[in-house]
């Protein structure tokens, strides 16, 4: 049976993963775009991304575009799998209601 994941269940991290998993598997999203999408501050998003990165659920790619630093974020295969298991666990809890 699928189990809940404590790292992902935090509301902001849950929404981050939901947004990243919606993208195609090889796609990555710009930090500022993700910030605007989630309606959170830079600091708040940065802190949650670090936790997800430490857990191996996302990868952070820092590149220079026209001499300006850009940070791109994507869900790792492990992150996608853990997120799907988390969703299944939530659904099974709801079914047992």
């Amino acid at each position, binding site marked *: 049976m699928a*189990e*809940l*994941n*404590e790292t992902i*269940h935090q*509301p902001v991290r*849950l*929404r981050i993963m*939901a*947004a990243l*998993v*919606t*993208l*195609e598997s*090889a*796609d*990555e*999203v*710009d930090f500022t*775009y993700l910030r605007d*999408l*989630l309606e959170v501050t830079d600091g708040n998003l940065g802190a949650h991304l670090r936790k997800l990165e430490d857990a191996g659920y996302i990868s952070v790619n820092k590149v220079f*575009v026209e001499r300006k630093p*850009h940070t*791109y974020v994507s869900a790792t295969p492990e992150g996608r799998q853990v997120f799907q298991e988390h*969703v299944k666990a*939530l*659904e099974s*809890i*709801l079914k*047992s*209601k």
Partner: protein
Amino acid sequence: MNISPNEAEEALAAIQTMTQKTRHSIASGGTYITLIVTGIVWLIGFMCTQFLPKEITGYIWGGLSIIGGTLGTVLGFRMGRRVHSPSTGTIAKRIVIFWLLLVFYGIAAIIVARPTDGKQATMLIVLFIMIGYLAMSLLFSFASVWWPLPITVLALIGYFLLPDYYYLWMSILGGGGMIVLGLYIHSRW
């Protein structure tokens, strides 16, 4: 970790909302910019065509097409930076080739059809542009596929029912309609 069914329901709702928001945001990103840029070009271009002499309007359309094309490309690239995809380069090349071929076919169709007046030629160009936008919408975001259809219907109504005010009609309802639609999509999504 244990949570109540109510908490599980809330979490699932949050996931669903975020998934829809992300999909709409990606799908609408290019659409609203395309609509606003094309709308401004049409609004100014058709308004000038209705009221100014023919000798000047050719230059105005030429200038507007260059400005609109450049603005659309620059803003398109900026929007493209939001989501990085390994296939972006290939897709961009295909889009450019598609539009170049559509321009070629459009010119060929006009040469073959030999339109008798400017309105006929304009209507053919409008139809080809709308075919292009429909193809783009179908390929990249099915959510935004609907908008070229009402614009085409409006253009046909103006062409057949209001021939004397066709350019004014296209300016206000075609161009203005696209700007309003673009702003609506941007504010809603």
